[in-house]
């Protein structure tokens, strides 16, 4: 049957409509004013009123990390009357002054990027504005900017809005997690966005950590006290190098390139720091007298750390001159942050430890907070001001290094610390059942295909049950379980992410965050190199399975007469389209990953499994329907001509280890070629491994003595000659009959 050219035109029109309709963006890569990150008047550049309903005015940025106070004007305040909480606030003199000037303090508004730097799936943070009232209850959340392509092209942004709306009414000190929480765990579970797990986990951390940090700072949430460190009575005086080796002194280096500055061969900042309260370290660094003087000055629950540095930059900066705050450094212990004022600073004139190099800048800083404990790990943070080379926009970047007093300085050694479980581990644990079922499915598929020689021998070209039934079962599991239930449909976007990770920065956490996709890709890589891409594309791809099932179901109906196959010559030209699509997407991705993700909508996978056709705008739905209808009448049109993932996998398939079996007669016989659904067999009988979907139809014919012409011929010849039909050997021919001498035993007649 001739291929209707109008369908080609229809496809082109659909694609054009699709791209034009994919342009809506919401907060995706929304341009933000540069002042948003640094201007004291945050609310002049951010919609603060939206996240703090009822507020009439806002203060300038204050505190570290920064936030603004939200006020309700006095008239309304007086109308509303004072409440009990207000009486408590009036105890604070500063609060009274602010109130006189602005009205009633009703809450705080803060920008997440002022507080935390948590990359989401795109590797960039989601810039989020959060409003919280004076009781620590979150009153509003708004994502100002994100770079999550999945929310642009895969999932409606309304779902993101619904997700963040769940935070309204939550307490800043609550333990909020994604997914259902165990009863009695004290945690609050939130509904995730299907298909955007990494994004929502990152956003959850962004919102809750930001809210907690501000709540801690303004006194809503009290720090959980940690057991104080008790130091061992060591008499040795380690030298500088020994302390660096054992971790009593740690180093934090920032290169100019890290801040977007040209390299000069010298680091921007090369800091060494350590904890001075530990007697052995303090005496080694300051000498016995110096240490004694320092300890005499410190109160209980006060801690001294030293910082020395070389480099182009300064860890002191100049902020302390104007505002009395050292704005380049801070100490973090879990979620508690400790900053330093000029009153927390002491000069460090000389290092007594032998072997200490000279430094350009030095100082001792005092942590005056009982929440800090030297027995537990903490982080020294250097806050850099990074300038984007292209946009010239400056943003703050944190560089941090962990410090944990070596065990020998602590009585009883280091205490047990339960590190927060990485997000990817939590996801793997939560999906244990799905992972187990998925592994079984993969193992079953590999086993069935590994046994293909046995299966195809039992099947015939008229009865293919031995091959088709296991395949149908796998297709069903793939569509239902892998596609619709777990949404683990591999996609070209993952390949693009891999290329980017290879070229720029490899993060295992990024790939581990979706366990089924992670496992699937290892399986895919392994089986592609061993057998070719056909095992995935022909047996396991959820969309491919759906497409072929649609074709086979239609074949069982009267519509069968409308089914067609493209002429081989046209097919041989069109099959290159998918390689062009793959190359184009790869090239575009290095220009803009977001644009590549948009163009990757040529894959109907998101519409089919991830989002659902009913949840998508009409161009996507129309594209999906058109492909599905086309699939009913010609076998796997998307897989053959458009699939960029298939093209990407086809290229290494050139080097698969084990191909399919062929006979010498295959170069002239076209029996297999005529029945090859993927049209992968050339006129010379050669199977193109890149196009082959391993349907095994040709292998069934290979052993079928009622289907394979050379075997049929031989069967008939032997029948006429009265010769027995010997078993068919692995090379696809009857085992030859060799005459033996008459005196040989009968059982040796056939060899």
């Amino acid at each position, binding site marked *: 049957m001739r291929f209707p050219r109008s369908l080609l035109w229809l496809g082109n029109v659909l694609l054009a409509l699709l791209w034009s309709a994919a342009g809506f963006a919401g907060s995706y890569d929304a341009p933000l004013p540069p002042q948003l990150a640094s201007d004291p008047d945050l609310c002049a550049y951010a919609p603060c009123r939206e996240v703090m309903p009822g507020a009439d005015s806002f203060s300038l940025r204050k505190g570290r990390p920064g936030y603004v106070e939200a006020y309700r004007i006095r008239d309304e305040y007086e109308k509303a009357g004072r409440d009990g909480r207000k009486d408590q606030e009036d105890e604070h003199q500063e609060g009274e002054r602010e109130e006189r000037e602005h009205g009633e303090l009703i809450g705080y508004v803060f920008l997440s990027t002022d507080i935390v730097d948590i990359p989401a799936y795109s590797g960039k943070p989601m810039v989020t504005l959060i409003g919280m009232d004076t009781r620590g209850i979150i009153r509003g959340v708004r994502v100002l900017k994100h770079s999550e392509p999945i929310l642009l092209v895969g999932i409606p942004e309304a779902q993101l809005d619904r997700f963040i709306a769940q935070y309204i009414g939550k307490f800043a000190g609550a333990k909020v997690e994604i997914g259902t929480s165990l009863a009695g765990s004290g945690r609050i579970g939130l509904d995730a966005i299907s298909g955007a797990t990494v994004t929502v986990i990152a956003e959850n951390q962004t919102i809750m950590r930001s809210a907690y940090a501000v709540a801690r700072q303004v006194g809503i949430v009290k720090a959980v006290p940690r057991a104080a460190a008790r130091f061992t009575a060591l008499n040795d005086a380690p030298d500088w190098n020994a302390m660096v080796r054992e971790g009593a002194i740690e180093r934090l280096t920032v290169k100019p390139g890290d801040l977007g500055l040209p390299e000069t061969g010298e680091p921007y900042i090369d800091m060494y720091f350590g904890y001075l309260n530990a007697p052995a370290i303090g005496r080694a660094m300051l000498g016995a007298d110096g240490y004694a003087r320092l300890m005499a000055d410190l109160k209980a629950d006060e801690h001294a750390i030293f910082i020395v540095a070389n480099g182009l930059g300064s860890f002191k900066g100049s902020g302390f001159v104007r505002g009395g705050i050292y704005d380049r450094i801070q100490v973090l212990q879990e979620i508690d942050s400790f900053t330093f004022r000029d009153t927390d600073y002491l000069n460090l004139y000389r290092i007594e430890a032998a072997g200490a190099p000279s430094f350009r800048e030095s100082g001792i800083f005092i942590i005056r907070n009982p929440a800090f404990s030297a027995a537990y790990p903490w982080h020294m943070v250097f806050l850099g001001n990074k300038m984007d080379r292209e946009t010239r926009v400056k943003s703050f970047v944190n560089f941090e290094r962990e410090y944990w007093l070596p065990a020998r300085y602590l009585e009883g050694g280091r205490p047990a610390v339960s590190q927060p479980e990485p997000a990817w581990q939590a996801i793997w644990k939560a999906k244990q059942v799905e992972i187990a079922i998925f592994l079984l499915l993969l193992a079953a598929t590999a086993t069935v295909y590994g046994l293909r020689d046995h299966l195809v021998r039992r099947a015939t070209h008229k009865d293919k049950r031995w091959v088709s039934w296991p395949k149908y079962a796998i297709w069903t599991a793939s569509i239902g379980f892998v596609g619709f239930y777990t949404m683990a449909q591999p996609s070209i976007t993952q390949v693009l992410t891999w290329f980017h990770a290879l070229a720029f920065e490899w993060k295992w956490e990024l790939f581990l965050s979706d366990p089924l996709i992670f496992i699937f890709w290892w399986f895919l890589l392994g089986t592609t190199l061993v057998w070719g891409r056909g095992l995935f594309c022909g047996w396991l791809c959820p969309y491919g399975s759906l497409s072929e099932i649609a074709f086979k179901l239609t074949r069982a109906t009267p519509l069968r007469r409308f089914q067609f196959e493209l002429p081989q010559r046209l097919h041989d030209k069109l099959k290159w389209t998918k390689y062009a699509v793959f190359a184009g997407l790869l090239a575009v991705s290095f220009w803009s990953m977001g644009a590549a993700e948009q163009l990757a909508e040529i894959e109907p996978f998101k519409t089919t499994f991830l989002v659902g056709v009913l949840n998508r705008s009409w161009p996507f739905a129309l594209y999906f329907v058109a492909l599905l209808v086309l699939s009913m009448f010609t076998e796997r049109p998307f897989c053959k001509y458009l699939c960029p993932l298939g093209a990407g996998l086809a*290229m290494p398939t050139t080097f698969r280890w084990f191909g399919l079996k062929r006979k010498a007669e295959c170069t002239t016989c076209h029996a297999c070629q005529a029945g090859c659904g993927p049209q992968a067999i050339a006129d010379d009988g050669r199977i193109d491994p890149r196009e082959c979907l391993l349907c095994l139809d040709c292998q069934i014919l290979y052993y079928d003595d009622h289907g394979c012409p050379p075997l049929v011929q031989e069967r008939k010849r032997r029948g006429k000659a009265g010769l027995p039909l010997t078993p068919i050997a692995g090379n696809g021919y009857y085992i030859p009959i060799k005459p033996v001498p008459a005196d040989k035993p009968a059982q040796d007649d056939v060899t």
Partner: protein
Amino acid sequence: MSETHDLPTMLPHYAADNSRMAWIGREIWDHLWPWSRRGFGRHRFLLALSGGAATAVAVVWLLAAAGRIGPSVVIGWWVGWSVFEVLVRMESKPYIKEGPWWGRHYRRANLMDMICYVSFKNLLLGALLFLALHAVGVLDFLQRLPALDWLYR
């Protein structure tokens, strides 16, 4: 019979080499050196030109791997060099291996075979080279060279 046995093959001259080590050595050389005496070797000018191009792009790659040049140049180099290598190989070593990597079944490559071979090989080589240079500190050394700073975008 496997599909590889009955199709016309074009063996490289070392395919029948009895010594396994010698054969492996020649295979490695084949992967790294696209030219042959039979092909571009006959055109000494082209040989010199392509040798110069290979040196230039290797330097570009080294600088790019050290973070001195942007990703667009890296991709441009990778694609450009791969296209060039495909053309050279189609003239000088127009065969690829069929079947297991440890086997000795070769066949004549068509253009798509060669594109797949060269792109896949160069991807692996680039990644391996990057890891090796990173491990021995060459990339860190280049990153700290002020004299190369002008190469920053």
